[in-house]
Each structure stands twice: as C-alpha cells, then as structure tokens.
C-alpha cells in the first residue's frame, strides 16, 4: 500500500480484532488532534478563558509572528472540552474590529448626541474622580451606583465598594436567570448558578421548555445535547416555535405563549394521580406533598388542553414517558426565564416537576455541583454601609437575593429613598438590556455622572459623559474563574496580544481610580500577575503551570447518589418544599397557581424572542467575523399569517407595538415552524448607535418593542414576552 499516515487521515477503522479479515490489516486509529498543524511562521499558543459570552470556556489563542491568528478550545477545559462555539472562534474579530473604542472620551455636546473629545487616561480619571467626590460630598458615596456584567466588573465593584458605593445591579439576575434561581432556591434551598448542573449527556429523557439549545450556544450543554440525541434519548420540546432542538425531538408541543405553567401543572397532575412519581424520593425528602397534591388536583390534562392548545392525550403521553425514564429524566431548568413577569413561580413548578421525577443528585438528572476552594488575595475590610441599598426598598420583592435592576433605575428616577447621581456602567448595554428604554433614558437624565466602560461603542456608550475603552479579553488579565460543575476547576485569563490602541484592562482602570479616590490600599498589588500569583500560591496552585495549561482541576467528589453522594436541602424545612410555608407566610401561592395570559388585541400578535448561536446579546453585532455570519435578524411569521397579511418571505416589514412604538425594518421569514398567533425574533439587533457602522439599523430591536413589562412580585424579574405587535408595511 502507498504511504499515507493513518494517524492524520483515516478515521474509520476496524471495531475490534476478529471483527473481520481487515482487523489485522487496518489498525485502530490512535488519537491525533486534527488541524493542530500551524501555518507557516512562528506560532505561540497561550491558554486563556473566553469572554465572548457568560459561559467562559477555556480556549487556546494562537499568535503567529506576534499577531493574533486564531482562538480554539482548550481540551483540558471542562466547559469547551476542546471545542469553541462560533462566537468564541470569532473572538479574533473583536480584536481586529476597526470600530472598537480606541481612546478615553469625554462628552462635549448634549448627552446622547455623541460629541466627544479624546482625552488622556489621566484626564479621564481626574474628571471621573472629581465628579465622584462631588457627588459623595453632596449626597454620600451611596449615590453612585455600578451596573455590571461579566468577569471584568470585579475590580470596579471592589474599588467602588471600598469608596462606599454600595448600590449596584447586574441585569443578568432580573433580566435573565433570576426567576430560575429563585424558583429552585424556594424548592431545593439552592439556586442553580452557571453552568446549570444538568446531566444531559446521560439523560434518557430531556424536556426543554423554551430552552433552544443549539440556538442558545451554551457550549457544554449543546455538546451534551448532541450526545443525548446520539444516545437516542427521548427529547420533548415545549416551544411556540419549532426550534432547532424541536427538530431533534420525539415530541414538539407548540404551546400557546404564556401558558407553560398550565402544561407543567398538568404534567404533575398526571404523575401524581397516576402514581408515577418517585414515591420513595418524595417520602424521604419531600415537605408538604399532600397539600401540594391537593392544590394541583384540578389541573387535569383536559383543563390544560384548553389553556395551552396541547391535546390532553399528548400531555398524558409525554408525562408517562418522562416517568418511565426517571430518575434519568430531566426537565431543563432554563436560563433566560423572564418571560411573563410571574416566572419564579413557573420555574418553581419546573423544579417541582424535577422533584417528582426524583432526579436531584441523580445520573441523567441534576447532579450536585462540585467546586474548588481558591483563596482570596487578602484585602482590607470594607467600610460599613451607612445606608440601605435602594434597589429593593422595604423588601418589596421579598425573595430577590440579588439586586433588582429596575429597582435601581426607579430609584434613580424618583430620587427615593435617596438620590442616585452617578452610574458606572461596566459592559452591559442598558438600553437593550433593561425593559422600556424611555425609563432608562429618564433615569440617565437625572445623573451628574455616567461612566461607561466598554470595548465597542454600544448605545449606552452614546449617552456617557466619560467613555473608558477596555481591552478585549484576549488582551488582558482578569481574575481567576473558579468554576462549579461535575468537578471544580480554576481557569486563568491572561493577555495573548497587545491591544491595538490605548485600550486598558478593567483592573488597571479600577486601580487608577482607587488611587484618585483615596482608597489605593484596596488595590495594593503592582499588577495582575502579582495578584494572581499570590492567590495561586495561597491555594497551592502551581501558577507557572496554570499559565502553561490554562486550567487546573479540583478534586473529584461524588456528585450523584449513584456515586455515593448524600442529599441535603438548605430550605426552612430541610426538605424539598412541595408546599412552601415561606411563600404562604409572605402572602404568595405556596404551590404555583396558573393565571391565563392576556389575549392579543385584534390584528396583533405576541412577540417572543430568543438567541442566535453566532451572537451574544447586543454586543457582538459589530464583530466583523460574526457580522459576516449574521448581519441582521429575521422575523419568524407563520406562513398562513404572512399570507393573510400580504407578506412575502424575505420582504422587509416594520412592527408597531401596543404602545405605538415602531421598530426598524426586519426581514420576514415565512414558515410553518411557528404558531400563527406568535412572532419571533432574535434579540440584540436593530442598533441605533451610528458608531457601530456594521450593525447600525440592521434588523429590528426586540428590546425597543419591550415597552410594556410586568415585574415578578417574588423577585423583581421583568418580562420580555408581554408585548403585542402588528405589521407596518414599508411604503
């Protein structure tokens, strides 16, 4: 035979010796990483963890002749397992993006008019420190608040807290995973955090309620979803839209938007009335099960059929199928769960459904998260807070365990309980993140200082008094990422290339600010290398090795009952709370109760939203590599609905919502893959910042249309699926 390295090329081989005559002639292919051969030039590989989204996968940057060449997955990392998503791979585009912020800017014209003067870093910090001191002198340091998202916020939060700025909010709570975490906290005594402890790889039955794995590119879960499909797991997808995940499903349940809770209650009703639930788990770990069973007695499949549009027989069949696979049956708890404004209760119902399946701490269910203990650097103690925080006055949302973002916004507007005069906004585009843009602009109008720290000119940067250009994640150090999962791990963020302009890392900005605010002792290290080395040294982690490998794994501990783990629940009863006394005491339903969603006015449709695998929020549309993959979003319209409205596939249309807000134009995708009463778009598009040249007015913004929102009475989450829209044809 002619030469050809089997290692490199042949990927099929004899299964076992003796499986056929060829067994001895074609050996089993040994392992060899594909595509690892560098192109010509001197190539350096440096591991670091990704910040293109919140999943924080470990990657390896390849730098060729000093220039960033590519970013690929780090095989040591439990999140990426050696494979990055398009956004991670596309990080290279964020480094080279010609539209990124280059220099510190101070506003000259009217706020929002985007007239700036480029200044030195010194001028920028002096300006910010002067304004902060002035606000602190007049109102107290509490009147300056921090908005944050992502790893880099860490030292801004630290320095501002040292200065006495106690107010802060992360929209990732009330505008995303908050309802899910509170629903689980109330049931199991713990939120689920990130990444969710879902054993998708080993499940025999996966139920996805609105979770569109594959379109939401939560890397590890998408990889495991592919494994589950390959393992022939039963997939049940509940979604008004035939998502990519639905295309892999045995059952697609095109539920009427806003009625998911009715379906979940009916599923639980079937499990309990037919005695299919995990009785041993309930007996051992359940609290208030009898009262719970009584409360859901009326929620029959026939009742739910009228609400959800899903046939009672299908509800029964899918409930039985789930039960037949328990405990290796898993209802994904979801992530961006703030749909209707009562989502903590729906998430609690999902948690209870999982409890009936007895999958807590079980293989193929929800495993127990394992972490890793890493020592802190050792900072001085923060000064005591002199005032309460403003975001949740008098515990208005009694079960919020993080700050409520619209609460902080409201306090900024009203000046109550005390004025908020300064905002520092770190890497969160509040004009697309928070509901009702008008209220955000009103709050901004009350400010004496708005500082935005960003890599690119987002909409919120357009309103800033001072813009601080941050280096993107491949150009900077950040704090360690200590991950929780099947096994704990620690990941390192380290610079792999220099930023192209004057951009600086957030930790350096925070340190500069600390010195000027007179709290320099809270940032006592020379640089992050020193900081990270000390944390590693205190924790027994070999820092030099971590710099080489990017990841260090913690100890392996049992994470399932099968492996010998013991279950314990940190709830008031110490058990899984089928009936919640604390909810009853606070005046809420102790077992989730369904309320029917409002009907759409004639000629209007409910607008729902989701994610695309190649973009993150509203922050990657300007990335040239990712823009190349997806420049604008599409409006999914049922083909019959489109026909009745005289809309053709591919034509542009505008949307007008119930409050008269009209969107930018968006291309129609006429399809059978969505309910006739529902419209769908990916959010994050329709940018109105002209500085985002590649993304400016491309597609429509779902956030702009989210003028009407409900607030979750338990925890302050704000809805995103409470708007009705109609078509406005282009002239």
């Amino acid at each position, binding site marked *: 035979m*002619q030469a*050809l390295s089997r290692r490199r090329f*042949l*990927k*099929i081989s*004899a299964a076992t010796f003796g499986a056929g005559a*060829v*067994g001895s002639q074609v050996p089993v292919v040994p392992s060899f990483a594909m595509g690892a051969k560098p192109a010509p030039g001197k190539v350096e590989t440096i591991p670091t963890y990704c910040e293109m989204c919140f999943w924080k996968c470990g990657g390896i940057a390849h730098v060729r002749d000093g220039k960033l060449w590519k970013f690929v997955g780090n095989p040591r990392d439990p999140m990426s397992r050696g494979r990055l998503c398009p956004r991670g791979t596309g990080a290279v585009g964020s480094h080279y993006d010609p539209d990124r912020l280059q220099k510190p800017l101070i506003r000259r014209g009217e706020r929002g008019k985007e007239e700036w003067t480029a200044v030195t870093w010194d001028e920028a910090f002096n300006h910010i420190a002067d304004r902060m001191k002035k606000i602190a002198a007049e109102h107290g340091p509490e009147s300056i608040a921090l908005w944050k998202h992502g790893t880099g916020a860490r030292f801004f939060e630290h320095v501002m807290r040292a200065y006495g700025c106690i107010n802060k909010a992360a929209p990732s709570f009330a505008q995303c995973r908050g309802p899910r975490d509170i629903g689980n906290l109330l049931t199991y005594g713990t939120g689920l955090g990130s990444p969710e402890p879902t054993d998708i790889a080993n499940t025999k039955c996966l139920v996805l309620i609105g979770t569109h794995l594959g379109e939401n590119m939560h890397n590890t879960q998408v990889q495991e979803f592919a494994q589950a499909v390959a393992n022939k797991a039963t997939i049940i997808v509940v979604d008004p839209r035939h998502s990519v995940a639905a295309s*892999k499903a045995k059952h697609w349940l095109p539920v009427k938007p806003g009625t998911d809770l009715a379906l979940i209650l009916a599923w639980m009703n079937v499990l309990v009335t037919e005695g299919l639930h995990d009785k041993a788990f309930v007996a051992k770990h359940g609290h208030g099960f009898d009262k719970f069973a009584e409360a859901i007695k009326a929620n029959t499949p026939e009742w739910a059929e009228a609400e959800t549009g899903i046939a009672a027989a299908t509800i029964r069949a899918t409930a039985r199928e789930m039960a037949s696979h328990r405990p290796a049956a898993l209802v994904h708890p979801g992530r961006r769960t703030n749909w209707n404004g009562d989502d903590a209760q729906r998430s609690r119902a999902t948690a209870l459904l999982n409890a009936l399946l007895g999958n807590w701490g079980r293989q193929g269910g929800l495993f127990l998260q394992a972490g890793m203990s890493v020592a802190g650097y050792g900072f001085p103690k923060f000064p005591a807070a002199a005032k309460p925080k403003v975001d949740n006055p008098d515990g208005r949302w009694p079960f919020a365990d993080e700050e409520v973002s619209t609460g902080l916004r409201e306090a900024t507007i009203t000046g109550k309980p005390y004025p908020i005069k300064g905002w520092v906004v770190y890497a969160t585009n509040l004009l697309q993140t928070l509901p009702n843009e008008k209220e955000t602009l009103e709050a901004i109008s009350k400010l004496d200082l708005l500082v935005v720290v960003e890599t690119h000119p987002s909409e919120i940067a357009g309103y800033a008094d001072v813009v601080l250009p941050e280096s993107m994640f491949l150009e900077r150090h950040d704090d360690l990422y200590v991950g929780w999962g099947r096994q704990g791990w620690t990941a390192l963020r380290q610079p792999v290339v220099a930023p192209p302009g004057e951009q600086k890392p957030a930790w350096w900005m925070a340190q500069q600010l600390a010195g000027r605010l007179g709290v320099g002792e809270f940032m006592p290290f020379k640089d992050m290398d020193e900081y990270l080395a000390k944390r590693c040294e205190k924790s027994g982690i070999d820092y030099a090795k971590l710099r080489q490998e990017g990841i260090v794994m913690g100890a392996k501990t049992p994470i399932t009952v099968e492996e010998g783990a013991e279950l314990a629940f940190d709830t008031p009863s110490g058990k899984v709370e089928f009936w919640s006394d604390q909810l009853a005491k606070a005046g809420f339903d102790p077992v989730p109760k369904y309320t029917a969603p409002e009907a759409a006015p004639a000629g209007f449709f409910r607008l729902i939203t989701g994610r695309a695998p190649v973009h993150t929020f509203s922050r990657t549309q300007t990335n040239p590599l990712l823009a190349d993959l*997806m420049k604008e979003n599409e409006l999914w319209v049922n083909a019959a609905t489109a026909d009745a409205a005289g809309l053709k596939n591919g034509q542009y249309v505008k949307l007008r919502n119930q409050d008269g807000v009209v969107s930018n134009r968006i291309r129609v995708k006429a399809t059978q893959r969505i309910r006739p009463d529902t419209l769908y778009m990916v959010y994050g598009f329709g940018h109105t910042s002209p500085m985002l040249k590649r993304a400016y007015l491309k597609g429509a913004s779902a956030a702009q249309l989210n003028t009407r929102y409900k607030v979750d009475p338990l925890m302050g989450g704000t809805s995103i699926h409470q708007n009705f829209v109609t078509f406005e044809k282009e002239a």
Partner: protein
Amino acid sequence: MNEADIATGTARADFCRFLAACYYEPGPEFREEGLFESMAAAGARIDPGLEAGARRLGEAFAAEDPEDLLVDYTRLFLGPVDAQAKPYGSVWLGGETTLMQDSTMAVLALYEEGGFEIAEDFRELPDHVAAELEFLYLLLFRSIRPADAKEREALAALRSRFLGEHLGRWAGPFTEAVAQGAQCAFYRELAALTDRFVKREAAQPAGH
C-alpha cells in the same frame, strides 16, 4: 481473483482512501505525504480520467495559498452558518435538511455491520463525506483478498447497499454544490473527481 483484478482492486481502494483524505482540513501534510502523486498513480491503474484529474488536483493544490485553501474549506464545509456544501449525507438525502437524522444512524449501523467504528478523535458526524469514502475504501480493500466466497458476497452486498442507499445517492448533488461554491480550483477539481469516482463505483457490476 487474478493478478490483474488484484491490482485494479488495490488501485480502487487506494484511490478511494486518497480521495477521502482530500476532505480533511487542508494542510502541508497533503504535500508531505505525496498524496496527489499517489492518487495519480492509483488512478492510472483504473482510468486515465482519474489519473488526469488527480494530477490537476495536485497542481491546483500547489498553486494555491494555504490560507486561501483553508478559507475555502471553511466556507464550503464548515460555515458555521450557511456552509455552501454541507458534507453530510443527511442534508442531501430524502429532504432531510438537518443533521444526525435517520439516514445518519442508518449509515452508522452499516459501519457496525461491516465491523467498523469511527475513531474517537474524529470530531465529525458518521455521515461526513470523508467517513463514507473511508468506509468505501475499507470495503474495497477487504474485497481484494476475501477469505472465501461467502465473505466476497457479503462485502459486495454491503457495498451495493451502501452506495445505493447512501454515498451513491448524495455524492452527485453534494459535489455539484462544492463545484458551484468553490473559489479555489482545488475544490472544483476535487468535486469533479469525487463525482467521477463514486459514479464509477456505483456502476460496477456486483462482485467487482
């Protein structure tokens, strides 16, 4: 099987193996391992058209900037959005527009029936064009010197089913899409060569 048959059988198997290799990410090892010379030599023992095609393929590879080849490869086969010629059987078979469909599982079952498995480090789906071509190569290779008449017949039957239900059915539209979407001559030549070879194999009488 006589000497001449053995020589042709070996050449067909080799050619198929080299063709499969061309669908991996292009890199310097294509040249280092003399891929195109070997391919032309094997082609010469089967059909002058295959030999000429393999030579043109080698010339196109040598003429192209490696980076441009990678870009074309990515655009054609990886995407990740709207890859021009998705290299998976399920995309082309029976209106299945998504991956990992029944046809994927069916081809995997055929591999297993033949006693083969996919390497652990092959981070691709079972019905990737390279995997299917390698499977065809293994069947051709085993057919050169079968243990007995029974094995010969079993291999022929498996090959005929595989070509009739899988690769033979989708190679045509797939290579057409490659030819249309390719920006480099290399992938246009590869498309033509693949189409020619697979059609030729599918037209082989049973037992050959």
